[in-house]
């Protein structure tokens, strides 16, 4: 029980409720929120959906926080696993409703460091083509690409995450990129034919 005098200070506490997250979880959030978001964003169509799915990931993680086992996975791996399931669930729900793709004019948040507006627009289109292409790949390819280019993991981290060897990761990345390249080129050829 807190002493009475301390309780009077609760106004301040309510104003800063984030203080009340378990400190370890707060630290994870601080450190990995961005990686989770980027991982999710790599695989879903829009910023809004990425935000929603990221929210679900951390909400689930918070609920399951007590069951986290440090011996089985690092916090980052654990969070990314939850994220993978959340993305899968999201995509499954989309499949029931229709398209996985997004038109090119809906992607204002994907950019590269490019100075002019014009180049930025072209670049955004290119990025969206790449991501749409990635979404046509098989799940395992999508997973390895989003871990590498979305969450920014290096090969050894991906290896830990997937439970395979570093060598196998390199091979998978290589193959996924090759298939992505083909997928994007196919799509470009198709759109010219049309």
């Amino acid at each position, binding site marked *: 029980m807190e002493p009475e005098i301390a309780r009077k200070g609760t106004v301040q506490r309510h104003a800063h409720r984030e203080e009340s997250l378990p400190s370890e979880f707060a630290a994870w959030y601080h450190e990995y929120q961005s990686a989770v978001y980027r991982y999710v964003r790599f695989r879903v169509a829009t910023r809004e959906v990425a935000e929603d799915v990221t929210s679900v990931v951390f909400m689930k993680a918070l609920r399951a926080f007590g069951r986290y086992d440090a011996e089985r996975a690092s916090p980052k791996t654990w969070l990314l696993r939850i994220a993978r399931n959340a993305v899968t669930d999201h995509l499954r729900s989309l499949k029931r409703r229709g398209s996985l793709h997004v038109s090119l004019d809906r992607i204002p*948040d994907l950019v590269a460091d490019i100075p002019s507006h014009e180049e930025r627009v072209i670049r955004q289109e290119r990025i969206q083509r790449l991501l749409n292409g990635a979404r046509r790949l098989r799940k395992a390819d999508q997973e390895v690409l989003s871990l590498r280019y979305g969450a920014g993991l290096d090969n050894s981290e991906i290896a830990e995450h997937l439970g395979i060897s570093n060598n196998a990761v390199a091979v998978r990345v290589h193959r996924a990129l090759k298939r992505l390249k083909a997928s994007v080129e196919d799509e470009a050829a198709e759109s010219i034919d049309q």
Partner: protein
Amino acid sequence: MNDIFHHLDDGELPDDLRSLDRELSSIRYEERPSFAPELRAELARAWAEEPARRHRAAWRHAAAAALVALLLGGASVPSARASFVRLVEALVPAGAVEQTPAVASEWPSVAPAPEPADEAAASETPSESVVETTTEVEAEGPAWVLPQMLDRVEAEEMLRDAYPAALQLGGIGGTVRLRLWVDDEGRASEPSVVRSSGFDELDRAALRIVPRFRFVPALQRGSPRGTFIEFPVFFNPEPERSGRVLDPVVDPLGMPTIDRADWWQLSQPLDLEALSESGWRSEPDSDELAAAEGSLISALADPSVLERYGPASTILAGVAPESVMPTEWRAAVGGALGAAMEEGTETPAALLALGRIRVRQGVRAEARRLFERGLRMAMRSEPPTSAWVVAELHYQRGTLVRDNWRASKDVGRVHAEAFASATCTAARSSGGVGTGFASVERLIAWNYLCPGEMRAVFKAGFEPRQSGSAMDLTLMMASYRAAIEAYPAHVGANTDFLVTLFSEGRWEDVLRGARRLTRVSEGHPNGLMLAGMALQRLDRSDEAAEHFRAALERMDPADADQLADVGMLLGPDDRTRYRRLPIEERRAWVREYWSTRDPDPSTEVNERWVEHLARSSYAHLALGGVFGDAGEVWIRFGEPETVHIVDGGSGRLTEFWDYGSGPDITFVRWVSSRGTDLTPEGRAYVDDLGRSFSP
């Protein structure tokens, strides 16, 4: 941000994949800055509720799990549903739980009345203590089964259709919490709003629709029972989430709703004689302006801002007084208004003023957000916001959208292969190959060297850019429409709306809209000019002439002289002499000029003069003035048969105006600016054309 990629080991990749690897690694994902803190606060709230939750009955956990499943399963609006989760949890009183176990129900969630103490009373006067839950539990004890929706997909479709398009386009949405009586045959009635969305129109739309939902009635121990249910209805303005694609639903060029009321009146000619002698009504009128200024002043915590930076009317207009350096003024006033926002004292008028300042400072995305925020606020505020401020917020937002639209409308690129079949060899070496698309320089050179083939080149190789152009048009017109509906005498919104309709060939609508503008503004020249332009296109030159004459009489004499000016129709020598004359003699020249150029002397009206006025009116209203390059070409040669716009990169657009013979006339326009100027080659060509006038 990209630092995290430095450790990526791409050494094992072959060259052709390495560039793809680098490309993927360089993608940045711009997070909404407030997202991380918002989510963190959300998590903290959830965590704070956690201990209480643990004490509740075990089925509640099942409920949460079911909801998470719902969230992830059929969810189209997870974040809205997340708040729904909280709502559900907050509303279920622990005591009610044991008495009212329930079966699963999908969204909208529905709930049984608690078991009534007296059965007769329950069926006649349903209990007010409505309980909501969404869960899946085995029935035990007194078995209540919730009403179930017969067809959820149908219900969602009905709701989507009921969403007022103007609100959706305006980015306005919300959640209405409703109560509904579902009788023992599953019929719904007596809808009422438990918690408003804050927008009457949304509430009304929901109320209108929900009685059409169909249910399986609630069951108590197996017998059907009437019961009240409560549920939220979400209106999300983003088409991506609401599932509604806007384009096919609304006519982007539709008229404002006020027109439907006086359709008959608008089909009647204007009584030009009856227009007041004293000029048109000023906009906004003094009451509206006073209300707007009052709203602005109330936002400013520090009244000395007004003393230092000028009267409220100046700040509201976002234009610095002449005595001050505008950049400094904007920084200071912007700071004061920004401070009001931080303190939470902002008002729609203050947001309007700040948005206008931001536009001039080049922060257009922020400006748009400010206008939209102002609109949302205006919808809710008590006392009601001045209608003119609402109209102005819509209008300013519309002009920002228009700039986007203009940046992508008709814009495209030309495939280099389009030149392959060309027979003209003069320009074959003019660069620009390699990217697969012809460079602008090559197109311009080809245009003037081989004019006969330009049309074929565009036909074979012009590829319009994929863009949000249609959406921008829809949004722009919806903004103008909303402005006109809020304040029918808004001259800017009416003018831009009607000019767009005009360029889309909707003459009848332009005529109606122009008549309305003329009536409500008591004779604003823009209304008269637009009516004249439409009448001229409808081959009613005599009526058009009357409207142009009325417009010239009523506008500022200097403007009238510009509109009637014939200098650019003269040859070089005559033009020099004409320009040097005093104004009275110039006017005489104009009269003399037209008296000798009547294509059909058997009619009372000079059709060529009417056409000239129609062209200069368009140049004045749509092309940035009669003396600009685009205005000059339009007045001299009329409307081009086709226009192709080629994107030269870095925000530079090159326009090719095709008049059917000779080379296209070429202009350059910057995305960020309003002006359209001839390219040097275009200027030389237009000057060569000398005294041409081809109505």
